[in-house]
């Protein structure tokens, strides 16, 4: 999947190739799955709301291929997060585990509007964001389980996944800290004249952080190409937005920074908004994008997620707004795929995730020496002590 995304980012579209899709999966009408790049024009159902900016058109151009990719990618992400849930319950994953299922449309829709010159930085709910930037399911699982083949060599864990080459700067554990960091990435892009933007993502909980406003002020002052993307899933841990924000209209909170409110459960709306905002930011400076989204899981694996919201609410969103189901309906209604073909895609996605999981379980724990590696990029022969200072004194690598 990383390869496919790399190809996409290289600007080339996978034309008419069946990829991993079983060629035998013929639909009822006897034709193969359509992976045409022919443009399909659709209307985004939920209107955008603008703050100090004229929202983009609700007419969006997509293609069979893009929609199919959306479906497959989100399905893989969904399976991955559900597998992570089981892994955590069987104690393969320790500590924190914040799952993204329900929110997939945000990172998938974003990627459709970005390229390899752009950067993303987010908070700790980062497994799927990491995947979207070119990470693999194997390195996510291995990292979650603290193994060598993890993207951070097992030394970071759930909240600290990075991919510098892919323009992904984490994975940050401290709520809100990623927003000025994102402004810094945008500053560097502008300084080095890279025609790219940075998406600094944060949640409704982080939206009240002072440093976010400090970052917005500087980015607006210096015209930095940064998009502040608020993934509003309406709950900051156990606190609903109306209990933590005097104004939960997060797209307006930038004040002098224009904002857009977007249906975050709709890949195409997200894609349209990010495309629009990226163009804006490259010329004018920051914009806020509020993605109206929802997480099915609780805040983390230690939160059942049902003490501060009703099960009816959760199942209601799943029924009405699930991002994968939305794309499924589009694929079926536009006769891009049949039910059977979609089932095949799902089966393959499940297999991809299961294979990655099996491989990740085989990955060994890091060697003990890794305790002392990467403290510095350059150590000058400095020494570090282990817990037993007499036994363990290491000259840093």
């Amino acid at each position, binding site marked *: 999947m990383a390869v496919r995304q790399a190809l996409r980012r290289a600007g080339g579209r996978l034309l008419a190739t069946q990829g991993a899709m079983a060629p035998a999966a013929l639909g009822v009408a006897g034709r193969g799955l359509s992976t045409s790049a022919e443009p399909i024009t659709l209307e985004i159902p939920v209107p955008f709301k603008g703050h100090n900016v004229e929202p983009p058109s609700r007419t969006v151009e997509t293609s069979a291929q893009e929609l199919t990719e959306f479906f497959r990618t989100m399905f893989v992400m969904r399976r991955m997060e559900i597998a992570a849930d089981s892994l955590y319950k069987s104690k393969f994953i320790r500590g924190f585990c914040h799952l993204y299922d329900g929110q997939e449309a945000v990172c998938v829709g974003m990627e459709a509007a970005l390229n390899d010159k752009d*950067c993303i*930085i987010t908070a700790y709910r980062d497994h799927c964001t990491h995947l979207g930037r070119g990470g693999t399911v194997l390195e996510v699982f291995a990292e979650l389980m603290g193994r060598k083949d*993890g*993207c*951070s*060599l*097992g*030394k*970071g864990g759930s909240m*600290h996944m*990075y*991919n*510098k080459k892919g323009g992904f*700067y*984490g*994975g*940050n*554990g*401290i709520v809100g*800290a990623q*927003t*000025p*960091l*994102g*402004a*810094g*990435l*945008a*500053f*560097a*892009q502008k*300084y*080095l004249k890279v025609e790219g933007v940075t998406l600094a993502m944060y949640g409704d909980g982080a939206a009240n952080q*002072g*440093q976010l*406003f*400090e*970052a917005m*002020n*500087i980015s607006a*002052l*210096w015209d930095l190409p940064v998009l502040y993307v608020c993934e509003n899933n309406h709950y900051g841990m156990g606190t609903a937005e109306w209990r933590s924000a005097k104004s939960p209209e997060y797209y307006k909170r930038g004040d002098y920074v224009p904002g857009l409110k977007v249906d975050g459960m709709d890949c195409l709306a997200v894609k349209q908004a990010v495309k629009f905002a990226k163009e804006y930011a490259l010329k004018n400076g920051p914009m806020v994008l509020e993605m109206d989204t929802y997480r099915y899981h609780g805040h983390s694996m230690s939160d059942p997620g049902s003490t501060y919201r009703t099960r009816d609410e959760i199942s209601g969103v799943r029924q009405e707004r699930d991002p994968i189901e939305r794309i499924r309906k589009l694929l079926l209604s536009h006769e891009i795929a049949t039910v059977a073909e979609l089932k095949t895609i799902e089966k393959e996605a499940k297999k991809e995730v299961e294979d990655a999981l099996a491989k990740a379980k085989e990955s060994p724990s890091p060697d003990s020496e890794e305790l002392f*590696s*990467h*403290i*510095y*990029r*350059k*150590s*000058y*022969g*400095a*020494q*570090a002590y282990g817990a037993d*200072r007499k036994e363990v004194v290491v000259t840093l690598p």
Partner: protein
Amino acid sequence: MLGALSRNRPLLALLRGGNGGDKAASAALWAASKRFMSSDNTITVREALNSAIDEEMSADNKVFVMGEEVGEYQGAYKVTKGLLQKFGPDRVLDTPITEAGFTGLGVGAAMYGLKPIVEFMTFNFAMQAIDHLINSAAKTNYMSGGTINVPIVFRGPNGAAAGVAAQHSQCFAAWYGQVPGLKVLVPYDAEDARGLMKAAIRDPDPVVFLENELLYGESFPVSQEVLDPSFTLPIGKAKIMREGDDLTIVTFSKMVGYALKAADELAKEGISVEVVNLRSIRPLDRETINASVRKTSRLLTLEEGWPQHGVGAEICASVVEESFYYLDAPVERICGADVPMPYAANLERLAVPQVRLGSVGLYGSRVKKRCADACM
């Protein structure tokens, strides 16, 4: 001054605002501006820092400076004087008074690959941004399995100034010195300032560069080698400022000057003091410290900061761990008093170590007694 300037074309050209200059031009500027120093080969710590930053900015386009008043104001303490004129507003940035925001921005820029020098007007204000120094900068290379390093320098005055009271006088050496992933440098004289600043800017990891406001205006003689644009000092190596046989004083920053003065006084009493200038809190040069104590058999640590869990505490622990049997007397510490810094001048004097000239100082008498005891 302006007359002299007008005769100097390379200097003028650069001051008119080049787009970064180059190494040769920078050296020419430096040679020309030496004319304006107090005497040949004597420079102030301020000039040392300014020239170091200037040269490194000329040598590497990725280096930039940001902080409050660093640009148009020429620097709150004039350390960044002239840099805006020379390098322009894209590389010398005046920030709003929002430490958390601009420090995070600097760290993010460093993660991408730029080399920011973030000035804190004093390190007291860095507390507003300390999460970024520790969690965003220090730990990232480790957490990312070595894929994202943070080549940033955080610099500014640290510790007590004069009469600035409790919220503006804290020494942060011990706090930052504790953190794996940070390098913490503490220059004393002009040579330290130049060499360590250049090393810090070139360093691929986050460096906390603790200066001292009262040292900025002090002049020190420096060799030609120090003035060369390629001059750097190694990070993690202490310097023996003065050799001695009876006692090792380990100290850093402004207190190095105090230790040297005290050593002069003690020499009159026949006590020979070795003064170790740490230059680097992290990595700590345990080798030099212990080698010195093994020679003199007595240790005294000297710092301005608070005593509990201070820098001296770590040095004492290190010496006790590694050189216990060489000690002829228990290790001693002299630190700032365990109080928030008072404003009244007499109380302020009581709150930080002093050298009492004339009669051998506070610790001198203790040391003298200890030496005398040992000789019994």
